């Protein structure tokens, strides 16, 4: 589905470059700490839980469920639905729900990642399964 919204271009940095390189390949990456075993998002070099620097990239299934959402009824680019998705791998992330009837969203609904283009690397969004 065409999306009329122009999304900001992720600027990236040495800490997150791999994430964006993989997004170009259609992959959603998370970070996992090999010291404490916890996964986190967005990616950090040092684990936000145990502060170990032994964090590794992991490909997410891109599947999860809606933790919460809110449909913004009006904006310069029309209505949009913001929310949090809890990924199968554990971490929750902020996103928008797209390519769907946004008035029918429900907490607990199953969703999957879909990438949307920018002038740079694409950005992860979610859509109901």
């Amino acid at each position: 589905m065409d999306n009329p919204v122009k999304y900001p271009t992720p600027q990236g940095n040495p800490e997150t470059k791999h994430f964006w390189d993989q997004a170009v390949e259609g992959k959603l990456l998370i970070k996992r700490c090999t010291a404490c075993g916890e996964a986190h998002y967005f990616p950090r070099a040092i684990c936000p839980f145990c502060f170990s620097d032994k964090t590794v990239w992991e490909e997410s299934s891109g599947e999860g469920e809606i933790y919460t959402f809110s449909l913004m009824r009006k904006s310069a680019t029309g209505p949009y639905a913001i929310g949090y998705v809890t990924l199968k791998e554990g971490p929750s992330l902020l996103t928008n729900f797209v390519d769907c009837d946004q008035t029918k969203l429900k907490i607990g609904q199953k969703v999957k990642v879909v990438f949307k283009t920018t002038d740079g690397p694409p950005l992860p969004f979610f859509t109901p399964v």
Partner: protein
Amino acid sequence: MSIKGKAYLAGIYEHPTRHAPDKSTSQLHAEVAKGALEDAGLSKADIDGYFCAGDAPGGVMAMVDYLGLKVRHFDSTDTGGCSYLVHLGHAAEAIAAGKCSIALITLAGKPRTGAMPPRATGAEVDFEAAYGATTHNVYGMCAMRHMHEFGTTSEQLAWIKVAASHHAQYNPHAMLKEVVTVEDVLNSPMISDPLHRMDCCVVTDGGGALIVTTEAIAKSLKKPLVRMIGHGEALKGPRGGKDLNLTYSAGVWSGPRAFEEAGVTPKDIKYASIYDSFTITVLMQLEDLGFCKKGEGGKFVADGNLISGVGKLPFNTDGGGLCSNHPVNRGGMTKIIEAVRQLRGEAHPKVQVPNCDLAVAHGTGGLLGVRHAASTCILERV
């Protein structure tokens, strides 16, 4: 060391304006500073500490120069709307430690006249900026989850606005003075589900200021004595997305810290100023501070329980941000000011709490559903 009883609120001033197209933001800071000094009975040369946040043009260096202050202590912590509650705590610490003896705290700005500068961002920017988090929709996300987990209803949230409007009718400066009903709130347009327009606070130009000082100086002045007896502050964010829970705020940490330092409990509080950026903000804060159990905020606020003279916990008797004033989209300052009015017995007679000797002023800042701060101040009439 504790700040308990070490710092006194000697001067307060809320700018009467709600729309100031003909004034500069720096000028509004100066006007509120002047107002608070006059209220205290002090002069500018007495000030030796200054506190301001992100709304102060150019920050603390530019403001101190513009105002013509000469200070030996300063702090420009910015935690959004609760910055001034944080500043009050930090001013009390500085006074307790002897770092300053008369502190000025100012807030002013003009979001009603013109657009505000964009919010500062951190490492999350590439991963979140595209999703359009605004105040409305991130507080909407909190309300949606709260409803899902606890069965909280829009009717219950509406009671918070209804209570604020009952108070605002007596405030000649309030932006919205009309008393509204639960039905009015539910019938107002949906802004960001499940929050209606009347679940949202007003946008106003204006500001406010405080003078905080030592016991000895406060006792040499003419105003009724109001002092800080407890303060807490805390921060909360998604923290890597682990165990995300949007049904509570950093108030669950700032509140107990403040109450413990003060040696009082929520049951002892006679009046509560609770930052009401949205109705859901109040409901969550009341739970987080311990006025009721988590999840029972809906029942607690219903049926006028927050209306002065009607319910058990009079709140925001000036009409709050929901009806009266929300200068610079930052509600912490006016929360402190109305709490001091209540403790002095200077609130409007129709909303004055009888024998009000203990109050809490509390707020959150930033975005409740994303990254935010909370600060709790316990104030006592001596």
